[in-house]
């Protein structure tokens, strides 16, 4: 897999969440994603950006245009240096929340994207990597 281009956006306040959505929308429409898939990617980005802000105390996102031999896609890497996630399985359950939300963010984002991965290194912080391909194999 190759990274065709990437851009970084800081997530430090709620206005940044809208900026992340706009950047993701620009890349997703550039890739000619269908309107439904664009909406799914933008919504997942919004959920994950809000997690970075609410649970991770801020961080950033890398928005990448990725390619493989026969397909292209978008990959989003959200990183924060917050306390991490104590129980990853539990965090993915719908309705589980340590914040004020509905507890749909992580599990919902996983459903909306094609690939989903959470990394919580021992040193703290959380990285969530999600991708969506234009042509599913």
């Amino acid at each position, binding site marked *: 897999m190759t990274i065709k281009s990437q851009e970084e956006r800081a997530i430090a306040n*709620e206005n940044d969440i809208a900026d992340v959505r706009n950047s993701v929308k620009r890349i997703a429409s550039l890739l000619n994603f269908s309107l*439904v898939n664009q*909406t799914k990617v933008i*919504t997942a980005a919004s959920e994950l950006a809000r997690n970075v802000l609410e649970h991770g105390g801020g961080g950033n996102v890398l928005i990448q245009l990725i390619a493989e031999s026969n397909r292209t896609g978008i990959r989003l890497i959200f990183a924060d240096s917050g306390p991490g996630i104590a129980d990853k399985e539990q965090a993915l359950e719908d309705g589980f929340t340590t914040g004020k939300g*509905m507890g749909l963010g992580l599990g*919902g984002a996983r459903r*909306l994207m094609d690939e989903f991965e959470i990394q919580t290194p021992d040193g703290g912080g959380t990285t969530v990597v999600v991708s969506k391909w234009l042509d599913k194999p």
Partner: protein
Amino acid sequence: MERIPILKLGEILLVTIQVDFHDRSALALQEDLTQKIVDYSSKGVLIDISALEMVDSFMGRVLGNIAKTSRLLDCNTVLVGMQPAIAITITELGITLKGIHTALTAEDGIELLNTLIQNGNNGQSKVFGKRRLYL
């Protein structure tokens, strides 16, 4: 922070949510609406989201809370103009928007609100009648 305007049309309050609706303006809308419902004794709130390109769980929660709070103030909420792509996405996300009435267009929404307002009044007098029987 920009505040979202609320228009009064008889017994109904009309809100159009535009693109780039921030978290803080969403919470301010919730407060402004509840205050206006009480000030004007409004019986219905029509929320038009046709200009929104996405609804995430935060916005889903705000819309749900507006409907619940309005209900406590004897006021119905109808959400209109949801884009089909948003309906598909929020269903997959897991947002149900339980308790919120929906209509496709603002016109249909106003018609639905008028029906709800009439039925609501009948419903209340029925309950009131029953209570009197038990007394």
